[in-house]
């Protein structure tokens, strides 16, 4: 099975957690939907192209920063006292907000389209992007250090893989229940945080046919364990790319 491997470096990023407002909190690694969104944007796809994403990486530290926040209601007229800015006749509120930032992020991302004939096409779009790639907020530039097509195969590990203090990954939750790996921790405590990551949405019309009002219904979510302190056992069969990096995915048999 072929996939595209991206090695990315980012400076100061925020992968926002959807319910955070006063402080815009961040996931520790980009969630699946964010990566899928970036790929689709760069490729210019208007329809969802089914794909699997494996995310691993690391950041140096976290910090909080101020930013200017603009808020408005579509078409709301300017009201003195309520709005700080007047844009023609419309009103916009301006204030401050806080955002949580990850510093010095290094990522290894594997993108495996279900339709394997698309690999070449996606590779071309990522290798020669039409505009600057960004991952996270619009201003979070993604510096693609490497883009390549790799062969990914399930292999039996000849040695156990120790991920201690190397980097973190979103590990599929069934790897844990299948006991493919051991998580370092005291007693029965696991170290790591479980996330239910958003992956794919469908538009849902809240309004009428004539006056549509869309919201996103998340139809695919994936439960993962975020951890950087684990060992994958010898003789376990896991997907590995041709450079020896583990791909954190449940691949269907070819």
């Amino acid at each position, binding site marked *: 099975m072929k996939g595209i491997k991206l090695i990315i470096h980012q400076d100061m990023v925020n992968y926002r957690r959807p*319910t955070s407002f*006063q402080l815009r909190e961040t996931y520790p690694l980009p969630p699946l939907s964010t990566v899928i969104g970036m790929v689709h944007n760069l490729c210019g796809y208007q329809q969802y192209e089914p794909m699997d994403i494996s995310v691993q990486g690391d950041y140096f530290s976290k910090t909080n920063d101020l930013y200017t926040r603009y808020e408005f*209601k579509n078409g709301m007229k300017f009201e003195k006292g309520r709005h700080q800015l007047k844009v023609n006749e419309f009103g916009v509120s301006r204030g401050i907000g*806080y955002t949580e930032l990850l510093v010095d992020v290094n990522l290894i991302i594997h993108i495996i389209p279900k339709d394997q004939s698309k690999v070449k096409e996606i590779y071309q779009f990522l290798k020669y992007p039409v505009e600057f790639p960004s991952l996270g907020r619009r201003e979070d530039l993604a510096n693609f250090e490497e883009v390549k097509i790799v062969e990914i195969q399930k292999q039996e590990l000849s040695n156990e893989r120790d991920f201690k203090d190397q980097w973190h990954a979103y590990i599929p939750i069934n790897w844990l229940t299948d006991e493919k790996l051991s998580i370092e921790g005291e007693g029965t405590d696991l170290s790591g945080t*479980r996330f239910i990551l958003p992956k794919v949405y469908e538009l849902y019309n809240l309004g009428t046919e004539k006056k549509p009002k869309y919201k996103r219904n998340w139809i695919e979510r994936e439960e993962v364990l975020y951890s950087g302190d684990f060992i994958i056992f010898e003789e376990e069969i896991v997907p590995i790319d041709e450079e020896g990096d583990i791909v954190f995915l449940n691949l269907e048999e070819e």
Partner: protein
Amino acid sequence: MSELAENDIIEFRLNSWLENAAICGLVNILGEDHVTIKNQSIEVPLSEFVNFEEVYFNYFAKQYEKLSSFTKILAYEAEMARQQQDNFSHFTRKDYDRLQKYLTDLKRYGTSNSYKAVYPLIESSVDIEGLLKSIKLDKLKKNELEQNREQVVERVKKLYEQLDKVYVYFKRADVQRYLPAKIQIYSVINKGYSDVSFLNRQESKGDFFEKYHQYFVSSMMNYLNEEHKKDKLTCSNCHRPIKKGDLSYSFINQAGYDANRKQSNAWDFNNDLYMCPICRLMYTCIPAGFTYVYNQGLFVNDNHTLQSLIDVNKGIRLNVLELNKTDVRSKNTYAALIRTLQDQMNRQSRKEIQDIQVIRYENERYYFNLLPKHILRTINMSKEKLPQLFNAGFTLNSESHYLYPEVVDSLMNNTNLFRLIHQILRVKATGGQVYTSSNQIMKMIEINQNFLKELIQMTPLEPQELERIRRDGYFFKKEYANKRKGDSVGLRLLNALKVNDRNAFMDILLNSYMYLNKQVPHYFTEVFSDDEHYKTIGYCFVTGMIGEAHNAEGGNENE
């Protein structure tokens, strides 16, 4: 509950800090024995929610009992009993004055809005408001107690009879159920959420137990009884299906956004954040997850397991209670946080704790700090030194600053302490109000070294070395026959430290040593190795110059 099985279980999963605080609160309210604590979630049997409002309000009433005005009101009863037992033989003017002060408090609290809102709920023939109003105690005239003791005692006795009635009223079971809870609604619960149900301005009268039950508990039960297979929407937190998106986040303080007027926050301008009634009930437990002291709240989001989340916050609560035994101060929340973190670090010595999010509630806002590993290590290394800063402080521009919270705040914001050290020395040198000994300043320099060591490659100076530099500074100033001249040299050195000008610093220093015709200590050569050494050595020296003598130096100049 007909369709629901008695043993149905509801799961609450950890998510971001807001949900975590709420889950922590839910565990606190129900008690750890009543829930099943898993790694990343808790499971609560549905039966626990049948009379949830009772445990809910009772938790707040008990937890904040000490700080409650109701406790203050009842506190006098013990004194009253003592006086009656002694038959007023030890009744002094002081006791009389205290009684009078107490009466003003009693009337003020007893006729405040939260008390008044409770009285109609009590089925009693006693007109408590009228009773409170009728209580009066004349001012004691000069020497009245000495001359007319019996009369005065008689007056007090009469008053005690009235007070007895008040206490009987306040100790009724229904008053005990409503009043302490009502007080906490306006001092604690409304810090978490507002404007809905019993916190709505129009709803402030009436039975808030019932209102809570109807608004939160019943709607959850109804939700569980309904069929949800056809529902198109989902709760943003737990992803349970919901029919209508009518429950927004806006009732939680500082969460969500104005879904009507600031739609630009949402994707395609259509708000898609709403919750199910189960999560709404959970969110009402946010104030139970936080630990509040007056207007400050604290929650530590140590979320790698649910148990650790509960333990850390329990530790903070216990530490706050202990620290507040004698005296309630807001800076104690900081101290409690530090103590708890240190406890945790001792316990988890083998496992490193990672970036921990600390959420503080102050001035009706949430403040977020992240405690990365190096800050936690700094705090741990400074274990013995931090408590020594407890009573230290200084006044700058007629504003008092307390050292302990300022130091912890600086560390949590990842900044070094040089600015703070400079400020204190400056105020001290110019004769301002400083309640900080030079010993305490030295402790700050040591803590600062611990902090710097974690950030950059540096070999910290040993405390003995630092102490020697300080002593040299002290004796250096003593050499000056004219004290003022020494002071001015100290101030000039301080300025050179502030602007990071090593050359100016060494100029002044060498010049002075030459003037005094003394040998320059060798460690000043280290000044040139890097900025951190320069400042550390420099501030130690100036601390000695500006500060008072230590005991060993045989002088008690300033203290």
